[in-house]
């Protein structure tokens, strides 16, 4: 047990070249501490001097440091808040990142003893541990080397196990830890590597041994920070190419494309260039991007650990209080989207229900309800993982609510007074723009859709068709006509207007009429998580684009010539979506064999090979006309 202190530079002269047992050391340190109030602080000062060595320690200095720290842990009961202030501040000021594993262990043992010895030191100890979540500024470059990564692992695994040890000894410690972690969280202007490593630690707490006590708050704080970063990015920055048209291009990128599709004027190309140009060099966007990726990976690990549902509950609550209230959040909502994509049956369904509940609940403020229904519409349209029948059910709920509203309210167009109603109608139409074709292909959904009292609502004197965004109304009417779902006798001439006086009015100054939260995510690193689960407008086959596959191909080929990499992805995605669509069809057909049409029986007979190998060019049409 003896430790030899063979050093002449070291702290305790009287200890030189003598073997001491641990308890003698402890006794010595206690004596040093106890003599401070009596006016003799020589040994005490030497002790503090030892703690301040940190640059390039020689082996003997390391040994001395370790010994002193160990002796101090034994003498914790003699440390006095008032008399040993400088000692405490040097202990709590030490950074684990500067030392090797031996010193780290000894220091953490001392921290643990301090935390458990009296209520006074608990907060300081936790604070010290939390401050070690991040390396000192000077070590940032070191972290990029393999040695740095090894050090990071050494430090963080120790910090977290010490936090757990403290929680074991002081059961109420986690409740003190949470505010400290949140308060120490770096702000949006901190360098990316630092904020990344801090968030990594927060997620480690969320997934770690004391997650039941602190996990929720970690997620909530993380979501808050994501929203903070999000709002730092102005909408103008999202679109740099054309300032005058910026917002509309971004918002209605997918609205413009139907026109592009038909006219073959290279809409794809336009979008490609948009996503590449935008946000380049925006530091905050890059930080947000990296943090989102961290969050996605964490969600994946939760899914693997089978606790995504419980994490999702926290996310939903936090979503309702932060993202939903934030003015037009741009990216943070994709955390929800990805969580839903990981577990469509539970989280995916839950999210849509929460949003629908929020929309129909009259006690919430109208703006929040409009925002909720905008999220819902965008989510139902863009989530590739949602089944057509589920979308139909939620749609039905919205329609029922709108119908009730029509029954109670009378009178003329009044965008301001009935804004919630108009936003509901717009949501219904928006979702149908995306989903009408796929629903029409499934017999029972088709009949469900045809039974919806859309006509009563849309032809009500409140005239939602005149108030909602003309671009959406136009696309909807076109598809509805082709699908024989709904026709209007009155002709609407929009002349390709994106918005109108009335739509602006119902959106209010917040412009919630133009809010499509799950429009394509422009963050580069997030893209690979979102893309496979995402429905792009270019993948959508509308009810009217019959046998236009050949014409669809052309712009894509043009595009391919200029952007070979990008189009490959996009095309592959489109194809996989199609095959997914066929799968769905097939499933539904096997459920309803009675109504198999010749075209569908073709699917049925050819089975899987057809899905995989059939070139898109001669893919059989699935339009409602052929039913």
């Amino acid at each position, binding site marked *: 047990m003896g430790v030899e202190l063979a050093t002449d530079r070291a702290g305790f002269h009287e200890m030189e070249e003598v073997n001491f047992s641990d308890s003698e050391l402890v006794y010595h340190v206690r004596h040093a501490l106890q003599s401070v109030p009596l006016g003799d602080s020589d040994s005490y000062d030497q002790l503090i001097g030892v703690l301040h060595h940190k640059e390039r320690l020689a082996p003997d200095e390391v040994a001395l440091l370790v010994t002193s720290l160990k002796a101090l842990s034994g003498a*914790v*009961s003699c440390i006095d808040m008032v008399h040993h202030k400088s000692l405490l501040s040097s202990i709590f000021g030490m950074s684990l990142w500067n030392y090797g594993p031996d010193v780290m262990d000894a220091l953490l043992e001392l921290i643990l003893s301090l935390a*458990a*010895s009296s*209520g006074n030191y608990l907060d300081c100890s936790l604070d010290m541990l939390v401050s070690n979540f991040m390396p000192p500024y000077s070590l940032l470059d070191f972290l990029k080397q393999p040695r740095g990564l090894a050090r990071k692992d050494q430090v963080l695994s120790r910090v977290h196990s010490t936090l757990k040890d403290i929680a*074991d*000894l*002081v059961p*109420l410690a986690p409740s003190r830890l949470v505010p400290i972690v949140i308060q120490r969280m770096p702000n949006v202007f901190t360098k990316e590597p630092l904020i990344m490593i801090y968030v990594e630690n927060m997620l480690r707490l969320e997934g770690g041994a004391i997650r039941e006590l602190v996990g929720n708050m970690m997620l909530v704080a993380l979501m808050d920070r994501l929203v903070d970063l999000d709002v730092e990015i102005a909408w103008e920055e999202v679109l740099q190419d054309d300032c005058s048209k910026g917002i509309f291009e971004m918002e209605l990128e997918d609205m413009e494309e139907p026109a592009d599709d038909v006219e073959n004027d290279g809409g794809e190309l336009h979008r490609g260039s948009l996503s590449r140009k935008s946000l380049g060099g925006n530091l905050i966007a890059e930080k947000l991007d990296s943090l989102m990726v961290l969050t996605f990976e964490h969600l994946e690990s939760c899914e693997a650990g089978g606790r995504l549902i419980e994490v999702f509950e926290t996310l939903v609550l936090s979503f309702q209080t932060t993202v939903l209230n934030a003015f037009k959040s741009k990216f943070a909502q994709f955390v929800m989207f990805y969580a839903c994509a990981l577990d469509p049956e539970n989280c995916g369904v839950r999210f849509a229900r929460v949003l629908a509940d929020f929309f129909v609940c009259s006690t919430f403020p109208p703006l929040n309800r409009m925002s909720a229904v905008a999220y819902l519409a965008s989510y139902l349209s863009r989530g590739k993982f949602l089944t057509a029948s589920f979308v139909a059910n939620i749609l039905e709920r919205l329609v029922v609510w709108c119908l009730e509203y029509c029954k109670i309210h009378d009178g003329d167009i009044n965008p301001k007074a009935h804004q919630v109603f108009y936003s509901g109608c717009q949501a219904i139409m928006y979702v149908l723009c995306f989903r009408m074709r796929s629903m029409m292909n499934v017999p029972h959904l088709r009949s469900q859709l045809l039974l919806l009292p859309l006509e009563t609502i849309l032809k009500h004197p409140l005239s939602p068709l005149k108030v909602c965004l003309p671009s959406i109304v136009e696309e909807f009417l076109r598809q509805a006509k082709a699908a024989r779902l709904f026709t209007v006798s009155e002709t609407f001439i929009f002349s390709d207007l994106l918005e109108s006086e009335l739509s602006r009015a119902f959106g209010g100054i917040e412009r919630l009429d133009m809010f499509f939260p799950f429009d394509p995510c422009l963050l580069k690193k997030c893209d690979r998580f979102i893309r496979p689960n995402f429905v792009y407008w270019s993948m959508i086959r509308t009810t009217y684009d019959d046998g236009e596959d050949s014409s669809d191909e052309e712009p894509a080929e043009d595009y391919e010539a200029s952007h070979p990499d990008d189009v490959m992805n996009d095309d592959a995605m489109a194809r996989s979506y199609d095959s997914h669509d066929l799968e769905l069809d097939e499933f539904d057909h096997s459920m309803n064999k009675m109504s198999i049409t010749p075209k569908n029986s073709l699917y049925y007979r050819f089975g899987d090979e057809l899905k995989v190998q059939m070139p898109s060019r001669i893919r059989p049409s699935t339009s409602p006309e052929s039913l």
Partner: protein
Amino acid sequence: MEGLRVSDANLIVYVHPSKANRVSQAILRELSSLLFKFNEIFDGVVLAYDVDIPSKDAKILPGIHPYFGVRLKAKLLLFSPKPNMLIEGKVVKLAQESIHIVVLGFSSAIITDEEIRGEFKYKIKHGEAVFVSRSHKRHVIKVGTMIRFLVKSLDEEILHISGSLNPPHTGSILWLDKKLEDASPSSRSTKKRRENGESREMQEHDTVDGGVFSLDNSHHIKKSKKRKISEES
């Protein structure tokens, strides 16, 4: 175990008008915010409550927000360890310099080596750190042992207790209870019976440790036991 008591409290909870349609939920939430915190008015830590709202009437507080005050009667289980009380807890860590204890599952306590009476000797037995009594070899304190100790002070913010094992009637509960039995001049058969009773009582302690409400019975028993102990010593 001392330091636990049930108090009847007459309270008025002021409910925010936005909670008007969920009053009982709002009241429970308000009361729950008292839990596991030291409260100077009650002079203790609220561990559990049982609430009764005798009247449906509430008094409206005039002002910008018309809060309404709901009168209620609550039974509160309070934990208020005072110096020189004997309380019980489970040892979670043991070192030469200190014993760390968790009381009732939420409050941490420490006994430093100055507060461990000289009778106990620190040893490493089978790789496990223990304190063994010099005079009674069977009197052992190790991690997991339930011990009875004296309160010296309480940090009200963190609910951290500093305790002492100096008085002779402190130490491992199991051993103290056994010793009590041996000392009582009773035949072997009654001792057996007692032992059974004793183990039942131990279980009761365990439930107390989990923070469960009723413990008046065991409280009484212990009181008498303590008197016996003091008569002995």
